[in-house]
């Protein structure tokens, strides 16, 4: 399958939820899917998985800064030559995402990282321990957020 076919297939999978999603093609090899409701995330991933498009390459979180109330989380699936990005928005405060571990066990480390670095709760994660940050790291401080203040650490 070349990139074109993969993306067509992917859009057909995604379009079964089309009452809640919009898709765009920023470049010929990429398909961006805006997932508007969190409940749909797991079913879409299952759908991709069933069609063997479910190789999760990375989870990226974008924090626009404290003025914005929301952060954007990108799930990058990279089957073959194509890139499928599921874009989900979560609130900055008390945001939560469903865990993909049931579908993709390898997602666990990405989700733990997401939780540690950005403070996004992952519901259904089995081991929510620290993965990267030191043991004596202060609670509720998320280093990858734009408004992270390193002075918190020196006070510690």
């Amino acid at each position, binding site marked *: 399958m070349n990139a074109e076919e993969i993306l067509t297939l992917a859009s057909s999978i995604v379009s079964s939820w089309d009452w809640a999603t919009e898709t765009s093609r*920023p470049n010929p090899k990429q398909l961006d899917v805006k997932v508007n409701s969190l409940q749909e995330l797991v079913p879409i991933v299952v759908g991709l998985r069933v069609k063997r498009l479910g190789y999760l*390459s990375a989870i990226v979180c*974008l924090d626009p800064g404290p003025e914005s109330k929301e952060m954007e989380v990108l799930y990058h699936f990279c089957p073959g030559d194509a890139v499928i990005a599921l874009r989900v928005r979560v609130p900055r405060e008390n945001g939560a995402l469903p865990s993909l571990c049931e579908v993709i066990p390898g997602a666990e480390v990405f989700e733990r990282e997401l939780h540690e670095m950005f403070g996004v709760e992952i519901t259904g994660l089995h081991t929510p321990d*620290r*993965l990267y940050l030191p043991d004596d790291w202060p609670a509720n401080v998320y280093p990858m957020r734009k408004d992270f*203040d390193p002075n918190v650490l020196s006070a510690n």
Partner: protein
Amino acid sequence: MESKREPERFTIAIGPQHPALKEPGSFQFTVDGEIVTKAYVRLGYAHRGIEKAAEQRNWIQDLYLLERICGICSHIHATAYCLAVEQLAHVEASARAQAIRVLVAELERIHSHFLWIGVSAHEAGFDTLFMYSWRDRETVMDLLEGLTGNRVNYSANVLGGVKCDIDGEQRTAILKGMDFLEKRARHYLDVLTNDGMFLQRTRGIAVMSRTQAEVMGAIGPTARASNVARDVRVESPYAAYKQYPVTMALDTRGDLEARFVVRVNELFESFRLIRLILDTLPEGELMVRFPRRVPAGEVVMRVEAPRGELFYFIKSNGSDRPERLKVRTPTICNITSVIKLAVGHQLADVPMILAGIDPCFSCNDRTVQLSHAEDGSSCMMKWEDLRRHGIEHYQGLCK
């Protein structure tokens, strides 16, 4: 007397300071006698916070920062970054530059795989093989040093091209080196597949089926040893891989031996590729002009590091530094498989299973850096101080 011990006695911590791991990363294995019953991973000993640091530095500085994510695959990190930023800036490096990038990347793969053969032989307690493979690895280290000037952090890439060229003399040296290494690689393949004692430690150990590999998201040679055809160089050719196509080395067995065989077979592919590139190196400029500011946009770049797919996501907001830079390194994907595979195996097999994925914890743990403007300037001051100090020092010497 402490006779009332629980049946499940020991938790053996492997790492962060542990001879099996030259890099920090902490695994905890609960063992019952010699059998592993539970595995747990804790990273973060090498977490420096590079992703955050990258947001604080400009595009050029980031190149040198990212190259130091990992000392084994430094070139491929820089390549991924350069390709991604070039795509954002709509700049294309010349065909010659791309070919040289691929050439250095393949040399790096050779160095990395030889290193890995040695390290895993060492884990298995086969020190003679370790010594021999590292002796031979010095050949490719010499070539890389001759080409770029450094043994580890080559800095061959610059934004818009490469900084080192290949002349006739280097060409002969590389070809000679490849002939020697190919001979040695054949020998190692023979040893790895025929040495009975070594096979006892690799054959049928840590078998990962194709489905398991796919579910756990294994990548790189680890996945290819389980017959998962996943190689970015083939699937989504970048740089000059379109002109120099690669054939994937696959194996169906999925055990440790298969991982050895796949990696050695990849060596042969690299030798072939390097010879081909040297024979048909296109002419052209080494680098093109690159703007200081990069237009706003998002880009995903995937390249094949020696350990598997390396993923870069870069978002630019049009300024002279990136808005967000995300690196997903190959080892992080393969760690899941170690945790799952180790359970049920002997403790003695664990170092081998760990080594089997060729882990690189420095890759995984990247840094977070101060997001303070003042600190940025204080850094500049220090650098300036150092520079001045250096100048004064040498002036003093001249007197």
